[in-house]
């Protein structure tokens, strides 16, 4: 009898140890999650700990209303704590994007977990009070409680978060919590009433946690994908692409099909480097053509030159150009360039348009999306550049955005080599754009009447480009690639290079 008694007591005290460890873990998870998602970690941690301790107090208060089947209640609570605590981080992660009252839900979870843990210790003391001497009981319960707390607070930052991640940690401890309940169900089956119901509940909860644990990576990927870390202020799906505009402090970012198109903080670097070399090199700039670039930012730069008489912008997506003609935030960026009387916007397929075009241009700026699929790849083909040549005046200059020479050197030099087949003078240059990285361009002249180092005209008050072209066309070894094929419609080798190079990075 005495021996069994000892085992019973020891088992319950071990349960206390686990409850304490798990309880603190849930508290730490909530705190970490709150500071991660909401920021201001001191405030978040302080509030979470306060609410948690307070709700434990409430739990302790309510424990006096439990009289019957104390052991059963204890096991039930054990299961419940495991389930709620374990799933809390998963639910919080998933709800963050879609629920307005996120904070309320966060504190509700903290409260419920704290409340249940608070219930358990007094409940346990009640169970054991007739079997152990009170002095020993109090001392043992609190000893194990505090040991558990210490263990949790050391393990959490050093082992658990680095190894399991926040979501994994809470799920893992949820499972430990529930497995104690399962162990109790089996060992104390004679003392428990209707032990099989508890067993079923416990095992079911354990399995649920296990399944979520297995898929926690996928859930995290999903929810993190939703977190741009920026506020989405506008989304629109046109027939051609999904436009997303985000805002964070003073930075606006435009995403097309989830690819960053520009960041308002540094787009001036990209667009000045795109537009000003070609505008200063070209023999004349009276009649300028822009292909792509529906955001109007390149046009903004072009209009800085007084001798520009006409700008034709051809962009497939009417939804895009309309947005950049009408949205107040966006017209502030492009200085209302698309509504300028010199500018003609044509919404059609650029390739077909160029094939049928009867006009000839003094300068052409090509700002298409990267060649990430076979459709877009056509817009970088030999035949496309041959087509463009037919609508260029003699000595007109042409520039093409040609992805990153650092991340995708093969793609970059493939486009350059393809352009070389068509135009007598071709060069490449690059600029650093913080939100993109090292970015590059191919530039060409349709004749020998001007050179890349000629500056025929300048715009005033540029922030980035200084009209010293020879400072931009130097490439370090890590941005060079040899043995590149020419991109043709029948090989589309560029799409393969691009996929190989950017695919590697994902």
């Amino acid at each position, binding site marked *: 009898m005495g021996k069994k008694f000892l085992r019973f007591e020891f088992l319950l005290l071990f349960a206390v140890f686990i409850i304490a460890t798990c309880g603190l873990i849930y508290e730490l998870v909530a705190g970490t999650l709150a500071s991660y998602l909401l920021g201001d970690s001191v405030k978040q941690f302080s509030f979470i700990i306060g609410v948690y301790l307070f709700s434990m107090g409430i739990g302790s208060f309510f424990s006096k209303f439990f009289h019957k089947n104390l052991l059963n209640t204890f096991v039930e609570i054990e299961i419940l704590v495991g389930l709620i605590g374990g799933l809390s981080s998963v639910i919080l992660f998933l709800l963050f994007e879609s629920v307005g009252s996120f904070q309320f839900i966060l504190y509700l979870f903290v409260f419920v977990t704290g409340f249940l843990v608070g219930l358990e210790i007094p409940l346990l003391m009640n169970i054991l009070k007739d079997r152990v001497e009170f002095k020993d009981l109090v001392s043992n319960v609190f000893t194990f409680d505090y040991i558990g707390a210490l263990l949790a607070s050391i393990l959490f930052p050093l082992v658990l978060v680095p190894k399991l991640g926040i979501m994994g940690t809470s799920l893992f401890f949820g499972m430990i919590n529930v497995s104690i309940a399962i162990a109790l169900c089996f060992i104390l089956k004679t003392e428990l009433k209707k032990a099989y119901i508890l067993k079923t509940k416990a095992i079911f909860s354990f399995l649920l946690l296990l399944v979520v644990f297995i898929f926690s990576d996928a859930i995290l990927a999903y929810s993190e994908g939703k977190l741009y870390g920026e506020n989405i202020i506008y989304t629109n799906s046109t*027939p*051609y692409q999904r436009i997303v505009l985000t805002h964070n402090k003073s930075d606006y970012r435009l995403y097309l099909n989830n690819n960053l198109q520009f960041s308002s903080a540094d787009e001036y670097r990209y667009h000045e480097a795109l537009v000003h070399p070609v505008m200063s090199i070209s023999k004349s700039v009276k009649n300028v053509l822009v292909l792509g670039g529906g955001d109007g930012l390149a046009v903004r730069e072009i209009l800085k030159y007084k001798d520009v008489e006409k700008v034709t912008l051809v962009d*497939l997506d009417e939804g895009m150009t309309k947005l950049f003609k009408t949205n107040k935030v966006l017209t502030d960026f492009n200085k209302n360039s698309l509504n300028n009387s010199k500018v003609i916007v044509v919404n059609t*397929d650029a*390739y*077909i348009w160029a*094939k049928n075009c009867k006009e000839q241009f003094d300068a052409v700026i090509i700002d298409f999306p990267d060649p990430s*699929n*076979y*459709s*877009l*790849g*056509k*817009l970088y*083909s*030999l*035949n496309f550049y041959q087509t463009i040549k037919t609508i260029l005046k003699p000595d007109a200059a042409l520039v093409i955005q040609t992805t990153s020479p650092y991340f995708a050197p093969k793609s970059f030099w493939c486009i350059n080599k393809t352009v070389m087949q068509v135009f007598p003078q071709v060069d490449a240059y690059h600029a650093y754009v913080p939100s993109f990285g090292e970015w590059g361009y191919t530039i060409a002249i349709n004749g020998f009447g001007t050179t890349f180092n000629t500056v025929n005209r300048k715009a005033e008050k540029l922030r980035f480009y200084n009209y010293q072209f020879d400072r931009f066309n130097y490439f370090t070894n890590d941005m060079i690639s040899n043995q590149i094929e020419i991109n*043709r*419609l*029948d*090989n*589309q*080798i560029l*799409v393969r290079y691009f996929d190989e190079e950017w695919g590697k990075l994902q």
Partner: protein
Amino acid sequence: MIRLSGTKHLLGHRLWIKDFPEPSKQIEIPYLIVGGGISGLSAARQFHKKGITDFLVIELENHLGGNSSNGENKYSKYPLGAHYLPLPNKNDKELLQFLEEEKIILEYDSQGYPVFDELQLTFAPDERLFYRNNWQEGVVPKEGNSTLDNLEFQKFFQKMDVFRKAKGADEKYLFDIPLYLSSSDEETRALDKITMKQWFEEHHFSSVPLFNYIDYCCKDDFGLGIDYVSAWAGIHYFAGRKQDIAAEKNDSVLTWPEGNAKLAHHLQKYTTDKTLKNHLVYEVKIENDKVIAKAFDDVSKTSVEIIADKVIMSSPQFVNQYLLKDRKGFTKEFQYTPWLLATLTVSDLEDNYSFPLAWDNVIYDAKGLGYVYDQHQTLQQVQDKKVITYYHSFSSGDLKKIRKEIYKRDQEYWKQFVLNDLKIAHPDIEEVTEEIEIFLLGHGMISPAPGFIFGEAKQKAKQNIAQKIYFAHSDLSGISIFEEAFHQGINAVNQILDGTTLDS
């Protein structure tokens, strides 16, 4: 919406009873070309090149082109027959010349290779195969093969490479295009006596994916699958094209949304104002040193008598047997596989994105030969609707029987037939299909069963009659490809003009 159409077989069948009115008018012309398919049009071009313009082309259908015809809907042109031309062999000067005339070859580079127009070469990606529940690049099964399969593929292609380069004692290629240029090497010609399947087994091949791949290739060019086609023809598919005309990607093909109707249109310019369409020739005979051809005008329902000095019969032999006497005996040996083409307009064509939509999309182990994406050669970024053309050949040991059966089925039957086959790769094809046009060709193409290519029937059928009636059709080559028809037309004209004859 479904539409069912085909070649004018009902009008053609009136040749059995010949219940046509007596000719009510006469036309006199030095040269008459019966049949406006590629061989007839090629003959017209050759006449023109030789400075002869007083010829007439007479055609049963309301358009020229024969198997190189096309349809067109709101969204795209599409083929109603042959749909591509592989890069020509370096030795095929006539064809190279034609491609240069039509600006398909733009110039020759410093190494002497022709520069083909980028817009007329198949855009990448050109082919994909639905194999083991995934689309993969190319039509040769690759991902998911066993090691043994891969070894057999390797061995097979090595053998084909050897055949491609090999020449006989007569210094001629064992397999060449046009076919009559091939070596008379006896051992090689013996391959025409067995089926491709027998050859496959005799060489200890056993790989199922390889078997299916060869079966697909044979059906693609000959209509008949590996079980029924001559081994000589089967190997010719792989070895006839020398792939010596380009430095890289030399197995490329030329294609257009309307298929080879593009080439037919190029050739048609030589027949302007020299064509009688909707005319069924029902009798051709020699009388008083002249050739008399009687034809029924299906529009005015009257008949016409054409009196010519020389006639080129560029009509198929299954038709010629009703127009000329004493031809039924050997014509029996000419077998033609029926074909079905279905052009679908679909709102979208989603699949499992394992490899993007290509020009030629083949479904492994399907009934048909897959489908061609008709808008593949367009430059646009996006298409409102997609238009695809599905191909199916009725390969069989008894082609006559199957031909009778296919004309008994209604359009609903064929619609389900096509959709069920496409469902293997596109489970939702039925929901996204907005329009479907079924096109049946009862005598789709000449099919070289064993013994035909080097057999007597072909020899007899191609002999001119009294140096007045000449024959030019791809069925006289034995394989139904553009190059054969093209050369048939040229050679017939050359024979007429210089009295030379070609032998094979």
